[in-house]
């Protein structure tokens, strides 16, 4: 509820981010470097576009048979001794997880990366109930220590430079003041996290892919933290959005090839951990969460965004995200995919997001499952307009524009008057009256005659 009270205002947030231009440029370059790594990782694969098409079809097929595959997964997972729970929303997800943890008298939890638990605000919930929750992905731990949410879905602390991380670690982990060497800082985090792994009573992970035919699931990490967090404690709880299913292990193989290449350019993530049931004397639980996903599913024109495998490629390529940062979106998931997902939560709250896009279409082209991201963003603009979430002035202007362009006489006259008036005004005054356009940009020199006037003359002389 607290989140709903804050209006997302992307233009304002972006302007604030760009005030520190040097930092904004660095952020842009850091993410573009990820895009370049993705290009290099993908370049060697002749079948890349065919893989994307195949993955897209698998996801569309799975989504259109979702109830069947969910039931199959539940039944197969149960046979393996995995306990399956269903949560209709974030609150229920948090309550279920807390209930399981309390039954086991858990005090300390280690967690590997999961955007779903971020979406449900699980950490806050468990900490409020008196448990210790430690994020074990390095980037996640950094933002957790700084008491911030992730600003990127794959590289959560990308907005922080190493000086800031050095200072944070100095305060929280007692590293020497002024230490900014990445290797030494990572070493300090490793020591700190090893201790947490050893002490943990339970491990929580997300789910990258759940396989309906086997009842198993896969968690992908580059740091091995999901394995460490689940290998020692006697309890493993995995939180899973209900769209994370694939039908078979053969289908899974397609996605494992796409995920890491799209995210970082690696052929495959360092650790793709297959969980196939609890070890003797331990428990394994999967909590399958809806939290608005079936409502989203019901809107056919937006359905494809449920195929998302959270690789982050659309964030890295997005010229807007790179220059406005993850927080400018005001939603757990930023960038083009966040822009298409957030309005499902609240069209009103996130009304600036569909306009935070130049509609360049690069996101749709990098998406490994071919989500039509920029088309969905455009579609949200129509939904906003039809829902009346647009200022009366803008509505009036668009109505007027429509009339002008429907009647050529009005348009021609309007154009002539516009050029006539503009040609009489000195340039420095034009800069002031052209509003947002004129703040940093000049208008071109205003021609005396329009093309249509020149054309008439030209043809008249022939």
């Amino acid at each position, binding site marked *: 509820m607290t989140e709903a009270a804050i209006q997302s205002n992307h233009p304002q947030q972006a302007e604030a981010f760009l005030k520190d231009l040097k930092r904004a440029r660095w952020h842009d370059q850091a993410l573009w470097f990820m895009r370049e790594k993705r290009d290099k990782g993908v370049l060697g694969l002749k079948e890349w576009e065919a893989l994307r098409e195949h993955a897209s079809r698998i996801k569309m097929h799975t989504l259109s048979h979702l109830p069947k595959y969910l039931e199959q997964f539940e039944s197969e997972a149960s046979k393996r001794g995995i306990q399956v729970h269903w949560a209709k929303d974030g609150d229920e997800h948090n309550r279920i997880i807390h209930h399981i943890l309390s039954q086991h008298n858990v005090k300390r939890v280690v967690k590997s990366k999961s955007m779903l638990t971020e979406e449900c605000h699980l950490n806050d919930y468990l900490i409020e109930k008196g448990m210790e929750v430690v994020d074990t992905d390095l980037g996640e731990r950094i933002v957790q220590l700084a008491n911030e949410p992730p600003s990127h879905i794959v590289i959560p602390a990308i907005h922080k430079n190493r000086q800031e991380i050095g200072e944070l670690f100095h305060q929280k982990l007692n590293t020497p003041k002024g230490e900014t060497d990445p290797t030494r800082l990572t070493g300090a985090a490793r020591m700190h996290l090893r201790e947490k792994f050893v002490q943990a009573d339970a491990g929580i992970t997300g789910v990258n892919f759940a396989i309906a035919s086997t009842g198993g699931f896969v968690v992908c990490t580059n740091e091995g933290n999901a394995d460490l967090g689940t290998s020692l404690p006697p309890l493993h709880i995995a939180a899973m959005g209900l769209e994370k299913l694939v039908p078979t292990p053969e289908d899974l193989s397609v996605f494992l090839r796409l995920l890491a290449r799209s995210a970082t350019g690696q052929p495959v993530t360092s650790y793709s951990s297959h969980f196939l049931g609890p070890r003797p004397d331990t428990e394994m639980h999967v909590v399958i969460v809806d939290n608005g996903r079936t409502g989203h599913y019901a809107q056919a024109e937006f359905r494809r965004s449920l195929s998302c495998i959270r690789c982050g490629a659309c964030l890295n390529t997005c010229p807007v995200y790179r220059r406005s940062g993850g927080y400018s979106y005001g939603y757990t998931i930023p960038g083009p995919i966040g822009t298409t997902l957030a309005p499902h939560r609240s069209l009103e709250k996130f009304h600036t997001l569909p306009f935070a*896009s130049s509609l360049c279409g690069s996101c749709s082209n990098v998406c490994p499952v071919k989500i039509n991201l920029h088309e969905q963003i455009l579609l949200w603009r129509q939904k906003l307009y039809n829902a009346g979430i647009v200022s009366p002035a803008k509505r009036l202007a668009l109505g007027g524009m429509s009339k002008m362009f429907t009647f050529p006489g009005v348009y021609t006259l309007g154009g002539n008057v516009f050029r006539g008036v503009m040609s009489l005004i000195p340039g420095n005054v034009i800069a002031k009256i052209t509003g947002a356009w004129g703040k940093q940009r000049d208008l071109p020199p205003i021609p005396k005659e329009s093309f249509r006037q020149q054309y008439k003359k030209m043809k008249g002389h022939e």
Partner: protein
Amino acid sequence: MQIGLFIPCYIDQLYPHVGIATVQILEKHGYQVDYPQAQTCCGQPMFNSGATKECKSVAEHFLKTFRDYETVVCPSGSCTSMVRNHYAHVVGGNNDYETLKNRIFELCEFLVDHAKVSQLDVSFPHRVVVHQSCHGLRELETGKPSELMIERESKLHSLLALVDGIELVHPKRLDECCGFGGTFSVLEEALSCAMGNDRIIDYEETGAEYITGADVSCLMHLGGLLSRQKKSIKTLHIAEILAGTVQ
């Protein structure tokens, strides 16, 4: 063959010389050009604002104006894509649209695919960088977007390669958006200008004297930033180079 010439509203009002260059190059290659005076705008500003209903009457007017032409050519990728691709969401099923969507071409597309131009007899002895506008590149497929692992020739580059004396240079980021984006340019002013300035830096690094492209809208945005900052690199629509109206 008679061509119906579609000159987008902002070219009509602000860049008439681009329209003239378009007429010249088409006539030079043996086409008869007709400019229907009833034309106004394709409706993209309304469509991209979400105002589909307001866009519809403009789209219907456009179709009425151009329905009798066998071929329509337009010196803008963005406006061409609006008609060919996005009208489906505005006037989909309309008979005139279903016919016209296969008959409307962006200028470079037309020159390469239909006119099969192999000789231009113009010279432009300058160092030039091409701004690949997003809608032309990704929606009309006039070139290979850097994200896709496919083979596709850039129609703009192959035409410019026919110009005598030209030196084509390439920026590090091949096809990053310039940040114009229609109403985006004013709704997200700070971002739009930051994107434009970064693009200008990329182009300056190539040592180019001119930035050219198939969309005046992007060039108007980049040109506006360049002019305010009194930078020396200039913008030119590709039709001006291909028609030889600039030296």
